[in-house]
């Protein structure tokens, strides 16, 4: 802008206004605050213009103002126009919302839908009046802005005075292209709960806790991305609700969260690290707790339990972090004791339905009250048998009685069980598993997820577990055509009972066990009679059935071989398929007689381990060059150069490549078979004596010897590795498509009184799930715009398809 002066305009450039981002004042891996609402206004203009600035000390004093000129003669001089007094402009508060990058965009709505709008710039270094709002929707911030704009005095009575904050101009990085520093206007907010509205419960230090709240980072798996105070309070909340028997963890320990360090434990599949993370599981637990607390629905714990929360603070104790304690103590949470009439008031104040899934004041206070009074979730809980430590073996409490009965029957009739007591392989399955697609051998709407199904212990699906052996026979053909199994346990002769046997007790001297073969179209075969010297078999399936533990049928497909995949290696895709199928077949481990055919010759699958390793290594090293398995290279190109370097890698040493060069190449240090160098041909007509290279092509072999390996540098060439079994472009191969034993299900039993006649959602609600917590977008039950796990609604009919409302089977 320019200023009018008696001598002319003077250009003046003011401080730039900039787009502004908001972040946590503390430095942690991802400090940007997403989803934070800012209710803001420029400071009001002062009532009087400021006085001229006094001269700086030492400076020449300003000249005195010139005396006013004598007014011109006029009959009636006009009143000089007084400068307009600046009015007090009313502050107008507006709402910004930070996006995924912490960028503060103006909030506006169009057709009733909230849309992020322009980013109105702010001046770094200039103060603004601000309120920071942490809330899962814009309603609170909009309500606050409207209240301030309609009656500021009344507004600050309700919400408090705004904070006067100036954004800072900071360097946030370096522009990769221009190398210029990236400077932005940034608002830094300390992670103190008192700086935010609305306030939460003092039980969680004043923080309002909710899913996807600001400060939880872009990547929600790694814990250090979150603001530490939020992570700590969410963690406390998880242990609190777990103590109250709401599911917050995995099938290893449903009532405590999984530490973030788990992501580095490669052997621990299915652990779902979530400690300190407000994930879908916790979201569901909060919702269910609120509904129970609102309706005065709770049970009273009796007896003693291992303390997991410190007295007074209710901070988690070391015992809370120990899954072994959680298993061994699980039975002490069984109760049927109802609350007495006086204690029915389960929340100090009613929890409004409008705050479902938010841990605000009333909800936090209610959690504290339940913990203080030793109340817990009123539904069914998951329990584990104390000797099931180190197994992911939790079951629905109603199944537990049947498990104890089974153990008693097995002991009574002499069956060999593990020294510490009956073992199962697994029971309750984490609801986060197999949601969209079923993993091998699993069902999306499995009874396992309710805790009503148990898998008996075995070794790799096909062999008996040494300490508690179980064998399986193919049952006689069923009316429905399904394949079922009869399972037998083992009894030493000395323990066999011979008199007064009930109907469900059947001993046998021999059985005809099933031998699984993944390469067989029948999935294996019935074996000759098996006799175990000094031992008898006891019909395990009959005992289970008598206790209403029903055995299920094998899956119709999946455990049998479906023949061979036969094809020619005519391109990279075919070669890759061959390598992958071979790897899968070898990994199967249950196909002793399966064969692979290569160029008309049959090979035992197990004898091809070395060969499979070679082709896999070749594929991995040459994938970008589309191996078939032959690859073509242009050594002068960037891609060609990179491929050559991959061939020179140490782990490729030993490969011998049949090489075809388009031009004349005399070989290198590790090659063989190429023509020796010839004397240059001088043509009489060539006065300059240029050499003429002999024509190509040339062929030979190149042995890969790391960096010593030479390749043609001026001609295109192709290479085909010399595998231990001859394989080339156009080779014909046939690989068996093997079954997977996980589909047999001979080990699976499920407790029929628990689920028969009920829908799948009903049996999950028994242990603490909600419809909202289970359903994805298709279920259309969002809360604050968020959905649950992702299951479909479906009622099992042809029209609706599979879903949570279908009958449990």
């Amino acid at each position, binding site marked *: 802008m320019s*200023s009018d002066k008696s001598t002319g305009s003077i250009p003046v450039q003011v401080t730039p206004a900039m787009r502004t981002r908001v972040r946590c004042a503390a430095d942690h891996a*991802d400090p940007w605050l997403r989803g934070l609402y800012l209710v803001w206004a420029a400071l009001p203009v002062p009532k009087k213009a400021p006085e001229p600035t006094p001269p700086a000390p030492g400076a020449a004093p300003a000249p005195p103002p010139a005396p006013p000129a004598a007014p011109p003669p006029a009959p009636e001089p006009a009143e000089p126009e007084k400068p307009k007094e600046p009015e007090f402009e009313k502050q107008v508060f507006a709402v910004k919302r930070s996006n995924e990058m912490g960028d503060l965009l103006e909030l506006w709505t169009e057709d009733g839908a909230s849309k992020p709008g322009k980013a109105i710039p702010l001046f770094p270094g200039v103060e603004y009046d601000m309120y920071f709002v942490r809330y899962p929707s814009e309603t609170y911030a909009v309500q606050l802005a409207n209240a301030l704009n309609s009656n500021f005095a009344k507004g600050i009575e309700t919400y408090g005075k705004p904070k006067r904050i100036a954004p800072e101009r900071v360097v946030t990085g370096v522009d990769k292209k221009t190398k210029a520093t990236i400077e932005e206007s940034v608002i830094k907010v300390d992670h103190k709960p008192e700086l935010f509205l609305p306030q939460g419960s003092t039980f969680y230090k004043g923080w309002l806790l909710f899913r996807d709240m600001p400060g939880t980072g872009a990547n929600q798996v*790694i814990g250090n991305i979150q603001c530490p105070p939020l992570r700590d309070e969410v963690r406390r909340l998880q242990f609190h609700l777990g103590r109250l028997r709401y599911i917050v963890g995995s099938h290893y320990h449903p009532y405590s969260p999984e530490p973030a360090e788990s992501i580095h434990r490669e052997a621990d599949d299915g652990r779902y690290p979530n400690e300190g993370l407000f994930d879908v599981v916790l979201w569901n637990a909060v919702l269910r707790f609120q509904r129970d607390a609102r309706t005065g629905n709770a049970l009273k714990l009796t007896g003693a339990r291992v303390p997991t929360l410190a007295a007074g603070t209710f901070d988690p104790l070391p015992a809370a972090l120990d899954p072994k304690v959680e298993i061994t103590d699980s039975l002490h949470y069984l109760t049927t004791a109802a609350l007495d009439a006086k204690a029915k008031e389960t929340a100090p104040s009613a929890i409004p339905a409008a705050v479902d899934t938010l841990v605000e004041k009333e909800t936090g206070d209610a959690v504290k009250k339940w913990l203080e009074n030793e109340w817990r979730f009123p539904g069914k809980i998951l329990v584990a048998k104390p000797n099931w430590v180190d197994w992911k073996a939790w079951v629905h409490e109603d199944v537990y009685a049947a498990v104890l009965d089974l153990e008693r029957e097995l002991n009574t009739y002499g069956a060999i069980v593990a020294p510490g007591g009956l073992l199962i392989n697994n029971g309750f399955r984490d609801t986060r598993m197999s949601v969209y697609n079923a993993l091998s051998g699993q*069902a999306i709407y499995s009874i396992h997820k309710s805790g009503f199904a148990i898998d008996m212990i075995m070794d790799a699906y096909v062999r008996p577990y040494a300490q508690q052996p179980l064998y399986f026979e193919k049952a006689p053909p069923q009316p429905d055509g399904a394949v079922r199994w009869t399972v037998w346990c083992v009894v030493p002769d000395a323990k066999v009972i011979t008199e007064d046997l009930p109907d469900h007790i059947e001993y046998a001297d021999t059985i005809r066990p099933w031998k699984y073969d993944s390469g067989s179209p029948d999935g294996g075969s019935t074996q000759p009679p098996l006799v175990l010297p000094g031992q008898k078999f006891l019909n395990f399936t009959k005992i289970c059935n008598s206790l209403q533990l029903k055995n299920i049928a094998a899956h119709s497909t999946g455990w049998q071989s479906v023949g061979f995949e036969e094809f020619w290696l005519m391109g990279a895709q075919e070669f890759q398929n061959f390598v992958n199928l071979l790897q899968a077949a070898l990994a199967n481990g249950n196909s002793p007689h399966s064969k692979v055919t290569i160029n008309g010759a049959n090979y035992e699958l197990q004898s091809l381990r070395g060969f499979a390793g070679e082709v896999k290594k070749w594929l991995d090293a040459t994938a970008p060059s589309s191996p078939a398995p032959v690859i073509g290279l242009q050594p002068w190109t960037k891609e060609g150069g990179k491929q050559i370097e991959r061939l020179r890698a140490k782990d490729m040493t030993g490969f011998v490549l049949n090489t075809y060069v388009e031009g004349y190449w005399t070989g290198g240090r590790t090659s063989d078979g190429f023509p020796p160098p010839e004397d240059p041909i001088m043509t009489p007509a060539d006065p300059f004596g240029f050499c003429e290279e002999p024509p190509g092509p040339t062929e030979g072999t190149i042995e890969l010897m790391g960096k010593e390996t030479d390749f043609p540098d001026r001609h295109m060439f192709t290479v085909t590795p010399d595998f231990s079994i001859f394989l080339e472009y156009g080779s014909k191969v046939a690989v068996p498509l093997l079954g997977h034993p996980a589909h047999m299900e001979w080990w699976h039993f499920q407790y029929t009184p628990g689920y028969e006649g009920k829908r799948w959602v009903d049996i999950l609600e028994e242990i603490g799930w909600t419809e909202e917590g289970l359903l994805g977008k298709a279920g259309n039950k969002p809360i604050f715009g968020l959905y649950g796990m992702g299951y479909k609604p479906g009622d099992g009919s042809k029209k609706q398809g599979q879903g949570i409302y279908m009958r449990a089977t």
Partner: protein
Amino acid sequence: MDGNPFQRDLVRLRQLDGGYESQLMEGDPDVRRDGKNPLNFFHFQQVPPGLYAIDVYAQDTWRTILSGLTVKTAGAYYGNDSFEDPDNGETMGVPLESPAAPHFEEGTPDLGQC
């Protein structure tokens, strides 16, 4: 201001104690961008001394982003402090579009049971 090509930035300089008011929109001759530098310069001409507010237009309404800018013959002030800055953005880069932390994908375990 936000890189939105469908709504040009519109800035207003409004005198609080007088009659001067002027608006400039991105694309006007008096609005320029200095090469690749990320600042837009809105050049308000012949601004008389006085007290001003700076407003920005967004979502069909004007928003005040500064109230009480004093323009004098000696320069521009906010309160008692100079509000001048000769920065032309030459040393400023462009903010990253997606500075989110790297995504970590969990593997899907195969338990192999029903």
